[in-house]
């Protein structure tokens, strides 16, 4: 098959395959493929979540227990407090920055591994994951040892004479973003690799011949064809980053509070499950809406690349 006609034919074949997926055998296929996972999620995620949704309509009685005596949306109206906006804004800022950085770093690395890794591709991928098979806490403590005023970075810069005073990196926005990007990098690299690895590099070569510039080839061929990977990596980075409270807590400071941290406090020392649940559901609502909007606009811009 020639490179020029392959994409168009591929699209038609995929559309045909999807159309065919409506008959009897397709129904069986659907059941085998989709049902087990969906049922598991329904049983062990939706049902428990439903319980919390019910809890979010309740209140706490004087004894400290959740009571559904007067269910209502009072927790939601309570949670729609403008006081939360700075923390929410900060969370969104951290999540977006982390995602952009993770994709910006992850894409080239995934590309390198896929294109030039050769025999050692799998090994290189495992090496990406290896640091994350240790304890999160101790990794974060190690980061503190690196970033603090008397830590590795500052000591080095001071010794070399590049600075006179230590640069305050730890317990700032910067350390939070660095820590979060570090933590989410593998969740970006792996899905990106998976998608880039599918890329037919002869297509890229042909595009270079046509565009006579690496940038054009990248923008018009590589990027669109690896869009599914980018979307997956983006989702797996942005969404959890929005809910991450541990990293901002440990690497952050008094001024870097996130909405996830506040939700945490409401559940623990605040002892208010209904209120905490309501705030959590509001956060989820914001995330779902934002994600769906982003996905839909992405789909419109890059036709047919993401299913």
């Amino acid at each position, binding site marked *: 098959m020639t490179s020029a006609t392959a994409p168009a034919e591929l699209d038609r074949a995929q559309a045909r395959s999807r159309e065919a997926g409506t008959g009897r055998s397709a129904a069986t296929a659907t059941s085998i493929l989709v049902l087990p996972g969906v049922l598991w999620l329904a049983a062990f995620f939706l049902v428990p979540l439903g319980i919390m949704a019910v809890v979010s309509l309740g209140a706490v009685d004087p004894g400290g227990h959740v009571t559904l005596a007067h269910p209502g949306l009072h927790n939601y109206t309570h949670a729609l407090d403008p*006081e939360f906006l700075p923390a929410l804004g900060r969370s969104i800022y951290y999540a977006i920055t982390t995602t952009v950085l993770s994709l910006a770093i992850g894409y080239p690395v995934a590309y390198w591994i896929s294109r030039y890794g050769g025999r050692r591709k799998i090994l290189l991928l495992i090496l990406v994951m290896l640091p994350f098979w240790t304890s999160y806490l101790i990794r974060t403590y190690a980061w503190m040892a690196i970033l603090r005023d008397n830590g590795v970075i500052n000591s080095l810069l001071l010794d070399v004479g590049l600075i006179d005073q230590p640069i305050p990196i730890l317990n700032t926005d910067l350390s939070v973003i660095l820590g979060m990007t570090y933590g989410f990098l593998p969740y970006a690299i792996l899905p990106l690799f998976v998608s880039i690895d599918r890329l037919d590099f002869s297509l890229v070569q042909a595009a270079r011949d046509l565009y006579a510039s690496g940038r054009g080839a990248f923008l018009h061929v590589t990027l669109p064809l690896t869009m599914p990977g980018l979307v997956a990596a983006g989702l797996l980075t942005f969404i959890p980053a929005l809910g991450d409270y541990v990293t901002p807590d440990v690497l952050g400071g*008094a001024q870097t509070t996130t909405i996830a941290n*506040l939700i945490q*406090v409401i559940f623990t020392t605040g002892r*208010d499950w209904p209120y905490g649940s309501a705030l959590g559901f509001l956060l989820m609502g914001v995330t779902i809406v934002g994600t769906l909007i982003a996905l839909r606009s992405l789909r419109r811009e890059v036709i047919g690349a993401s299913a």
Partner: protein
Amino acid sequence: MTERNLPGMSFNEALEEKLTQANWSRREFLGRVAAFGAAAALTQLLVACGQGTASPSAAPTTQATPLGSTTAAATATPAPTPVPTPEKELFVYNWDQYIGEETVKKFQDKYGIKVTYDNFADEAAQIGKINSDKKGGGYDVHYPASTWVASFVTDGLIRPIDHSLIPNFKNLSAAWQNPAYDPGNAYSVPNYWWTTGYAWDPRDVPGSPTSWNELWNPARKGQMSMLDDIRECFAVGAFLLGFSPNTKDLGELDKILQKLEVQKPLLRKYTATAQIDDMIDEVVQMAHCWSGDWVQMTYTKPRMKYVIPSEGSIKGNDVMVISSGAPHPIAAHLWIDFNLDADISAENTNYIGYMGPNEAALPKIEDYIKGDKRLNPPQSVLDELIELEYLAPADLSNYTDRWNALRA
């Protein structure tokens, strides 16, 4: 109401009889009692109601049926005559390392009971576990803060303690026997107590600070930390403004919030776990912390100092309780008795740096702990310290809202 063959319950049986006579349902009764709000009366009556609401399911057949009397006997021997046969296992749920290094092993060697000693990371997990099945989450012994005892009793989460099985109870100093939150120690035995204050590094902080105001000093911007705990932070503000740390007054809470808002830009972080390492690693010069945290700091950096500020501070203690669903109640009693032993209690204190209420253990406690006025303040100082009382959810939510406004 369930029939339970428990010793020495004549007072409660009589009370229950009275309730039936007065034709009051338990709920009605609780409602009226809550209206009174008198602490002593409340806990007394809650204990009584706890008897009736205790869950009847999974009550083990090996009940505590002592042959001796229930009063703290005058006998000198630590082992009661004859002890009912303990079970082969014991499940304990406690903070990590909140016990002497050899304690578990010594208990296992002495009684031949296999101990499963599990830890949790924070109070939320602990309380969640105790509440999860309404009878202790499968564990025998828990170590909650004392402020939880009353509600645990109401909810039937813990069972009464058979004092005939814990003769070492007499080792406790009189001040700790019969506390307000649990009269007669019917349900709990005090474990360790602590104070709240702040630690500082004498290399950076000159002189001897004694006031909470030092944590508001702009010269120390970015070098201080406060506890990530709503009640503890608000307590500091309250002390500085002359209010009670248990205040429910909205006006006072607003003033405390203002005070804390002035402080926030000067702080490096709010944390309940990193203060020890931050001081050791010299990330901060001054840290709002608990007395035990300071002891841990000194193990690595002996120069660190601690103060209980003059405006007032908090004291607290935790307790040992037995789950109402405890699978091994006799072993649980033996565990408590073992930890009340003078030698073992001293070993625990010496290892973890927290003082206990155990008077008999005093001679064996290391001087650097018991001689230190900050870890072991004289009674006059202790009497000044205030305990954080349980706040009803409606009141607590006023704190929470202001905390969120502060932190966001």
